[in-house]
């Protein structure tokens, strides 16, 4: 599997580290315990297209948001995660 880093270009999987689901959003500070538990521990086990965080630690050290099909490993989109590369995401 290869990932096309928006900063570096196409690179082998070994340069990246997988974080996991990019969908969960940190709940507000006053959110219920249930909402925080869900955010921290509960994950969907998606068979199909999902949005994931990957870290290009063996390269530019940017966090990326990768859209990947977990059944086929087909990657349909890669974009910088929020805060990675101010020029590209305007953060």
């Amino acid at each position, binding site marked *: 599997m290869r990932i096309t880093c928006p900063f*570096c*270009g196409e690179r082998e999987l070994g340069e990246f580290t997988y974080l996991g689901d990019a969908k969960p959003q940190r709940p507000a500070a006053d959110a219920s315990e249930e909402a925080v538990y869900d955010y921290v521990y509960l994950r969907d086990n998606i068979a199909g297209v999902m949005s994931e965080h990957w870290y290009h630690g063996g390269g530019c050290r940017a966090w990326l948001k990768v859209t990947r099909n977990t059944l086929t490993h087909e990657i349909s989109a890669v974009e910088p995660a929020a805060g*990675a590369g101010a*020029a590209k995401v305007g953060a």
Partner: protein
Amino acid sequence: MADFSWDVRSPLDRTLVAGPYGVQGDAGVALTEIRNFDLVQVMARRGKASEMAQTAQARFGVAAPETPKAVGASDATLIWSGPDQFFMLSKGGKHSIEALAPVFAGSASLSDQSHARALINVSGEKARTMLAKLSSIDLHPDVFGVGAAAATSMDHTSVTLWRGTDRNGQVVFNLLVFATFAQSLWHTILDSAAEYGVTIGHSEDLA
């Protein structure tokens, strides 16, 4: 309080043995460690990437690299190291961290890497063939031309790789590696290069 006396020396000081290595005859690979350089990492602060770029342009007379490449200024080289950041490689203290800190104050965070990295210059007829054993990126001249740079990994070690100006009609690669990984990568490079014949040396001159 105990007194400490630190010798400033290259991380390859004990490992590098100048002279020939591997197969005898015409060396296909030349390895030269470059010593005593100034290396500063310049990273834009949040929302200050364009300000950092303008400051770099004013200071060095060239645009800071926004894509993976190395840009030569009259007395320094600016090497892309990631989004909104680059390395400043020079000699003699003119662009040391002390000199650059007031220049980039407010637009970028600086980190002195002068003694944190080893710089290895790889050239010779078989340089690319040898590096192809260690690197998963395409180093063919059509893809990785003069001035191309990459933040990548070799033998599980993070490196900054860039192509310098050709020397005597031959391709020149530069490798920056973390000081603590330098010995390990050096041995790997020697193993890879041995079959082509190697000539080893060190220099104080930035290629």
